[in-house]
């Protein structure tokens, strides 16, 4: 049976990818941010996951407001980077794990989650940036397959935090019931605090971000019980997307071990958090 080697949480700020593209990795502004991921990269190298389930949102790049799936699962053989306005970024395409994706879709529907099933889609910085942070940018092929789970965190009504936690629990059971010997890692992405719109733009809440990096490990049920309103108030209009970490956390056991944790603020306009968790 397949195994879960752990869960990773990270911000997915587009400026991180842009900083890499422009060769700014080792500048004073960015080096402390990227260096914070080195222990996590080492962890990934040691764990050698075969499949990464990446929970993220498209930012109106592959999807528009004409059709907004609340949850969607990529079931494709391959995912290319999407053109976000500057042309597709020069990174290799991501190989899919379509057989698992279909198993996941079956499992979710049987457990009363009903995702959109996607056969062809491109992926934006929401998936690209976390992959580059944890795996580094490969010359020609990623050493891991991906299963994208798209969550609508932009067009209200967005799903309830508790629903994302429960989706994660269903995802965890889907992995554990998958007939294969692959090693899985689950990525929850987005956040932490930031606001890009309105006169509260530039809002940051480092104290709440640091608290979140503790509570996501120790008190996930409490975080899952928060209202969407409380997420927007605490983490900012765009920072509320951090609820996607609850999917990752739900896929793990109630008790977890924190292997690594990092916080840096601000990356562009965002409080940037990272965590590496293993089942206890």
């Amino acid at each position, binding site marked *: 049976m397949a195994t879960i080697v752990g869960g990773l949480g990270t911000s997915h700020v587009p400026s991180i990818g842009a900083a890499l593209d422009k060769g700014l990795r080792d500048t004073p502004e960015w080096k402390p941010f990227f260096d914070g991921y080195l222990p996590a990269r080492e962890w990934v190298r040691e764990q050698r996951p075969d499949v990464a389930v990446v929970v993220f949102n498209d930012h109106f790049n592959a999807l528009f407001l004409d059709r907004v799936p609340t949850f969607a699962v990529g079931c494709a053989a391959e995912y290319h980077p999407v053109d976000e306005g500057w042309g597709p970024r020069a990174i290799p395409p991501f190989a899919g794990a379509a057989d698992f994706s279909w198993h996941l879709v079956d499992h979710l529907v049987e457990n009363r989650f009903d995702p959109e099933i996607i056969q062809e889609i491109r992926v934006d910085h929401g998936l690209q940036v976390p992959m580059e942070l944890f795996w580094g940018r490969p010359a020609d092929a990623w050493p891991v397959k991906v299963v994208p789970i798209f969550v609508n965190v932009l067009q209200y009504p967005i799903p309830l935090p508790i629903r994302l936690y429960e989706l994660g629990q269903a995802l965890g059971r889907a992995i554990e019931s998958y007939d294969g010997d692959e090693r899985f890692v689950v990525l929850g992405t987005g956040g932490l605090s930031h606001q890009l719109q309105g006169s509260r733009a530039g809002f940051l809440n480092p104290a709440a971000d640091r608290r979140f990096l503790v509570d996501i490990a120790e008190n996930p049920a409490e975080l899952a019980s928060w209202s969407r309103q409380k997420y927007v108030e605490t983490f900012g209009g*765009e920072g509320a997307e951090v609820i996607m970490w609850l999917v990752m956390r739900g896929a793990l056991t109630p008790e977890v071990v924190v292997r690594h944790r990092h916080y840096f603020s601000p990356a562009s306009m965002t409080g940037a958090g990272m965590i590496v968790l293993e089942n206890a």
Partner: protein
Amino acid sequence: MTEIPETPILDRAHQLRGYRMNKMAMGLSRPEGRAAFLADERAYLDRFDLTEEEITAVMSRDWRTMIGLGGNLFLILKISAVDPVRITEIGAHQVGMDHESFLRDRLGKKE
């Protein structure tokens, strides 16, 4: 959700109000859209049935008004791919601060 001060969210009213402007911005995801915008911005905007108020907001890069009219940041940000502006400048404009003060007072950047 009740309203949170100074925090626009993409709810039903914003979605409906901003749909045409957001669709215009989505067109900039493709090279043809960007080329058309660069070649004749007004002609490009005219394809999307925008009001004069919306056209003026876009052409004057009035980010605060664009968002007030239902534009979504992730979409109108695509304008910065054809006419470069930093996201922190868009933030500062909405707050009504100069860029340096915004970086210092909101984002806590030194220098």
